[in-house]
């Protein structure tokens, strides 16, 4: 079977979080901004959280998601 897929919804989600790295979004906001069902979005958000690209947190009783920068960032000398 053909399993080739370009995960367009994932791409759209990443672009949205990348464009607004400081903002937090609820599932409803994301559903409205991306014009997608919440049911379609939930597995995508799960995957992005698993990859560490976004994180989930609670604020005023609401579940929100925001962009998370990579943890690893190291510098090293470059010899001439």
């Amino acid at each position: 079977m053909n399993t080739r897929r370009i995960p367009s919804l994932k791409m759209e989600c990443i672009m949205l979080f990348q464009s607004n790295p400081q903002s937090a979004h609820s599932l409803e906001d994301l559903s409205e901004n991306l014009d997608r069902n919440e049911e379609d979005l939930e597995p995508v958000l799960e995957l992005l959280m698993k990859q560490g690209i976004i994180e989930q947190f609670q604020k005023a009783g609401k579940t929100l998601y925001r962009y998370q920068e990579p943890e690893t960032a190291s510098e090293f000398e470059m010899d001439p």
Partner: protein
Amino acid sequence: MASAIELLEKVQQTFASQYGLTFFLTDREGEVLTSVEGGNGLCGTMLEEGLLNEMKHILKNDGRISRPLIYEVASGVHIMAAPVINGEGTSHYLWAGVLVDQDRDVDMQTEMQGAAPILYENNRSEWLQLAGRIAEVTGLCLQQTDVTPLSGLHLDRLRKSVQQHEAASAELFSQVTEDGGEIEFLGIAEQTGEDTYTVTRIIGREAGALRGKQFIVGEGFLGRTALTEVPGYWEDIGQDRRSRIFASLPERPQLLFTDTAQAHDGSVAVLFGGSFSKKRASASTKTLMQMTSILTESSLLVEGLREENSQQLSRLTSLVEICRLMASTPDPRRMILILLDISINLVEGPFSLVLIKDNKSGKGKLVTRGSYEGEVSQYVRTMMERTRQLSRLPEDTDGEPYVVTLPNGQQAIECPLAYGNEMQGILSVGIDGTSELDLQEHIAFLQTLSIIGGVSLQLAGHRETHVEEEKSEALHLAVQEMDEAAYVRSKEAAELAAVITARLEFPEASARAVVRACQLSHYSSDFIRRMFPENDAASVMETGNAILQHHDIPRTDRTDIAGYIYALCIAYSKSDRLEDAENLPRIDEAALDTFLSLVRTTHVSEVEFDLGGSSKMDDIQEIADAVKRMDHLSPREQEVLTLLAEGKNNQDIAEILYISAHTVKNHITKIFHKLDVSDRVSAISKVYRYLHKH
């Protein structure tokens, strides 16, 4: 026959809707027999502009077309021709078009979007297969004197389902089974395992329970067809054990047809149909089954092609969005994050990482998303070795992505982030159990992504460097206003420092810090630190000043060597006496040797060659030819050197070549380095020596 032509036109309309192509039938001489069906705008325009004459020309000159072919009728525009076999030989030709090249220019594709399907290198054979299949249907229609089997089909309904992007095969199956004819059920089984097929679509009275049933290749009637790929027809099989897959139904079929259909991804599906009540099929039912088989295969192909087109469109949209996002952020770090997040999601591998040169600090920087199994520093070392400290594209890659095996045994796609031959860094994306087909698609997407990344990072870096360069230049010019002699001295020192650091292969950022420290030696190091907080110029100056005051500095790192070079250049430019430089505490022998050989060579060169005299040579072509023979220079460096030898200054060269004066300066430094000279005079003299020697 008229009804057969009408029927043909309806069939063509249906296919035209499915594929976005225009279809028509001609005789062997190219005279059009059916109406031209389809909404391919570009094809319509081209037909008005004489495409038919072109086709007649093809038929006249290419003789018989014995198999489906694709002709390029205009640059990047193609039409398909397939022979229609009627009886013994080719009686007609079916034409379908037009397809547009994948790399035809963007405006053209946008203009024709939705009208002209795109011909990709990897879907060429599928288009040809499709044209061949439609020609087969056409041949069958032309053979039919009794057109009942097909005329029973409501082609308008079928076309509508196609236009609405529904599964055309479902509509087709419904019509065939609902007509009250001999075919009471129709189904498709698709390969779901190495030897296993599963019934995925089924339509017909009381046959729904078959959905999901599996059979093994070679087992029963269906398994036999999957194995041999030969159409089958069996009568009176109610008691035959080979029909046991139907055992779950209230009754077993008496009559069974089977055939195979190739799907878009190359897999073979088994098409089957039959009757529970009739034990034998009439001739027209056999023809109907044959037609249905062809139409089903076409439907499966179009579903695949449509899916691929939608994937291509989705990729293009993503890339446009990525470009937009990259262009809107001036921050290189954000660009790196975009590259990391997009690539790890595309490949769905364990990690993505970017190893990049930080031009500000002169250090390498590693940013990772996901988790790299094992010691990442070991992997970084191998990347640095392959790219010679991120200064060169890995050998034999041409800047394109490639697959490597990592020190931890995993595999990754490495994509150089470059601008021309100038390397910015590497994007590496771990891969995990990816099929070859997926891998090729990932590589293609990552190639585009890394090109966008390389260009964006270069532009962002240039913006920052450019601002610093301008600030540095302005401060240097201010010295000229205050103290002309100090300006000349600092300029000489900076020029010496530029060549020494290039010969010692200092990283760009470190070299820039030494040159800047020399240019701005008139200012205090505190002031320089305030002006250029992210550049090492102030530290270089402080170390250099300590050496100038004969404080012994233990050599610990590159900043100390940089400070030593600063001290050598400043000491010499102040007094014009080599001893003053030689008498400084010796921090690094290589730096001192380079400095001494440079200063001595410069003296000799200045005595031996006269720039004014050289520039009088009027045969510019000879100079250009001599430079062209210096094949260790890049084409751009050759252009710059030719203009230099013609007596042009940096600004003139920049204007002639449409590049910045800063870039010209960079090229000249590289030329000096490659020719092993320290100044323009020596470079020009080398050209002349080359001219006379060869």
